[in-house]
């Protein structure tokens, strides 16, 4: 009985009094970090009298839980948790309103693994079961008919780094800056850059999602959110390399005390592309890939992306 | 009517029949001594009168406010001092708060323990614990007072003194007192009536009334003591035999 009631009451109610925005202290969430540290979003929201409450998360599932409960209204997320939630709620939970980052995920392996066929019999890891890198890696292994030969162990980013450092795993499919960290500090090398597996080399890493009800009730606020996102991305794409590295490093440090070295951040920024295109075409592929390797339920991504707020799209 | 015991039987799961259709009528204000061999069921009987144990058959009638009970082991609460142990009984009997402290002192002095008020049970000697338990039983101030070998751990002199005090208390208050003892002379000295229990199963073997005349006549009471001892000894003989066979 729930959903219909909620829909019945949902209507445009003008700007929200408050926007609760979730994101991670990750390099792939740089648009959120920059928007926050430069006060971009805050400034825009103030015009409507909307307050901003940023909220840091560790992982996608917790962010999705928070979004579902109304504890946050919008979030920067990897596409996989967003897709999972969209499908399991039958389209009622959220919408993707913009992209934030693409690329910037690689399979980093030990020195002695030189080509894909060497992956047979190895132990690999990804940050999260059913996450973007997890599905990608499993799909890649399946394509190369290695899925039964190599094992894939989901484990958190920090643990992965440790496991790789200790030699307990032979490789990891990870996002930036961890991929760069493994390369810079732990003598790994990139065996597969994920972008090489996608048409035009583009696949989403971070997207901006908004709770469906919030989107219906406060489109003005969402518009501001997307604008700020766009400005942050513009800044990231236009700023001097040095300035960019320092700004990202400081934003990360301010957010959760991260202390990644400049070379790591610099290498990571090379890998990631910041763009507000949500890459709507890729979601069905992502869902299909997941279903092919037996993760999650098959479903349709139709209606997931609401790209009306993206300026570039309008023109 | 003080206490009415009607064809009460008691069976313990592991032990079998301990008390067999025992009946007794105890008048209001009587002073009863219960004699019997070790293990014959005296404590069990008191437990039933106190309502702590349900009879397996038969029934008992006791005053509605229950009975004060002095247990065979002193059963003091280890976290309370001697004084607080007695005070708890007063508190639970709704004794007026203002007079409690005074009453506690009075009761402990009665049992010669005025100096041990602040002592925890583990700091008391065996006899001292028993006397605190006695003070606590008196603190309850019920119409019926059950005492399970109240003086067993006491020396003869202290015991003598407490005998006197118990008699005096009984005379003053008209309580119904039922007390278990192993000491035939003690029974004769204190009680108005003596019930002698048999063992295995427990029945009333003998009932003797003690008049004040008898009590105060050394020769007569010595004769009664001998007589009761003989009865008890005869009863005991039987068990010696059964025990030999059982072992």
């Amino acid at each position, binding site marked *: 009985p729930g959903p219909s009631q909620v829909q019945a009451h949902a209507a445009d109610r003008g700007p929200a009094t408050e926007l609760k925005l979730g994101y991670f202290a990750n390099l792939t969430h740089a648009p959120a970090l920059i928007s926050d540290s430069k006060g971009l979003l805050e400034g825009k929201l103030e015009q409507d009298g909307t307050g901003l409450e940023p909220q840091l998360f560790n992982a996608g599932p917790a962010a999705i839980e928070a979004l579902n409960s109304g504890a946050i209204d919008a979030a920067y997320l990897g596409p996989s948790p967003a897709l999972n939630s969209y499908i399991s709620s*039958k389209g009622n939970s959220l919408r993707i309103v913009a992209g934030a980052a693409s690329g910037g995920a690689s399979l980093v392996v030990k020195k002695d693994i030189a080509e894909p066929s060497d992956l047979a019999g190895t132990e690999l890891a990804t940050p999260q079961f059913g996450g973007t890198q997890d599905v990608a890696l499993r799909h890649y292994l399946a394509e190369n008919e290695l899925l039964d030969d190599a094992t894939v162990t*989901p484990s958190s980013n920090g643990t992965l780094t440790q496991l790789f450092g200790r030699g307990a795993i032979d490789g990891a499919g990870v996002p930036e800056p961890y991929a760069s960290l493994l390369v810079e500090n732990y003598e790994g090398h990139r065996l597969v850059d994920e972008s090489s597996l996608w048409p035009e080399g583009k696949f989403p890493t971070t997207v901006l999602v908004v709770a469906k009800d919030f989107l219906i009730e406060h489109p003005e606020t969402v518009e501001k959110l997307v604008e700020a996102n766009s400005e942050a991305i513009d800044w990231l794409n236009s700023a001097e390399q040095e300035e960019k590295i320092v700004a990202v490093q400081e934003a990360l440090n301010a957010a959760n005390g991260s202390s990644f070295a400049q070379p790591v951040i610099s290498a990571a920024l090379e890998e990631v592309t910041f763009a507000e295109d949500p890459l709507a075409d890729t979601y069905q592929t992502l869902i299909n890939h997941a279903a092919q390797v037996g993760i999650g339920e098959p479903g349709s991504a139709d209606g997931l992306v609401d790209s009306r707020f993206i300026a570039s799209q309008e023109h | 009517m003080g206490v009415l015991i009607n064809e009460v039987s008691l069976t313990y799961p592991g032990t079998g029949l301990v008390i067999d259709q025992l009946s007794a009528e105890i008048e209001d204000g009587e002073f009863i001594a219960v004699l019997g061999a070790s293990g014959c069921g005296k404590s069990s009987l008191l437990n039933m009168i106190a309502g702590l144990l349900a*009879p397996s058959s038969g*029934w008992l009638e006791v005053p509605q406010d229950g009975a004060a009970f002095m247990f065979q082991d002193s059963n003091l609460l280890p976290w309370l001092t001697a004084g607080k142990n007695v005070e708890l009984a007063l508190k639970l009997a709704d004794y007026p708060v203002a007079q409690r402290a005074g009453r506690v002192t009075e009761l402990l002095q009665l049992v010669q323990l005025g100096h041990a008020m602040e002592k925890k049970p583990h700091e008391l000697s065996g006899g001292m614990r028993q006397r605190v338990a006695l003070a606590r039983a008196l603190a309850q101030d019920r119409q019926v007072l059950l005492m399970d070998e109240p003086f067993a751990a006491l020396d003869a002199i202290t015991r003598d003194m407490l005998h006197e005090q118990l008699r005096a208390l009984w005379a003053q208050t008209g309580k119904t007192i039922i007390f278990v003892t192993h000491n035939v002379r003690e029974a004769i000295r204190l009680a108005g009536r003596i019930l002698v229990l048999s063992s295995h199963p427990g029945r009333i073997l003998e009932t003797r009334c003690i008049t004040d005349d008898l009590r105060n006549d050394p020769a007569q009471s010595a004769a009664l003591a001998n007589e009761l001892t003989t009865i008890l000894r005869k009863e005991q003989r039987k068990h010696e035999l059964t025990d030999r066979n059982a072992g």
Partner: protein
Amino acid sequence: MSSLIETPDRTAAPGRTRLRPSRKVDAFVAPILTVLVLLSLWQIASWASPLREDLFPGPVAVAGKLPELLADGSLVSAVGTSLFRALSGFVIAVLIATPIALLLAHQPLLRQGVGPLVSAMQVLPSIAWVPAAIILFGLSDATIYTVLLLGAIPSIINGLLSGIDMIPTQYKALSKVLGASKREHILHIELPAALPGYVAGLRQGWAFAWRSLMAAELIAVGGSLALGVGSLLQRGRDLADLPLVMLVILTILLVGVLIELLFFAPIERKLMADRGMTRTGENNG
């Protein structure tokens, strides 16, 4: 005034025995009833709730998930894996913790030095051990067992220690008078006397063991390590699959109830009966 306090009452036939349902049945009937009541409350709540169905699935929705999980065998095998790990780990923990507790109980200096640390280790969350365990053992069962043991051992040590602390001094005096050697004292007096406290400690130790295991199973949820219940739970969260999460929770509860009813409760009942006591809530005055 005399009133009647008759037990059993006057009209009852003499010598009648009270009929009691056997304990075993009792022990299972009441919990099952409770569960049924809770399930219906849950279903009603989920109907009445304004929350979306994927956020608050009712028992029916959750049950609907069951065939799928049973069909691919993942639930059964996860429960089997976790139960095996938890039980074997628990046994190891008991075997390690018991001598340590005895040592601490008999070495005053050691106890003063190490005792507070043991208590402190109880409050250390299991995941704190994960980095260290991974460095030592990589992604192996050894890592999982390490985390489990470090969770369970301190609590069992504390349970046995507090059981030993509660032993009445008179038993220690007896043991001395009987001329018991240290070994004999421990074997014949200390352990049996401390047993009730020890079992209470074991129950807590089991809880710690199981919860630590769940935490350990989150380190790594598949691959070379067999999939456990903890991994399944995390998988449910990762996939925003609340019916799966609920199903895992119910499974864990079921395992917990069974362990309690088949293991701890009977032991405790036996111990208490041995000492002439009854658990409150069991018949007998």
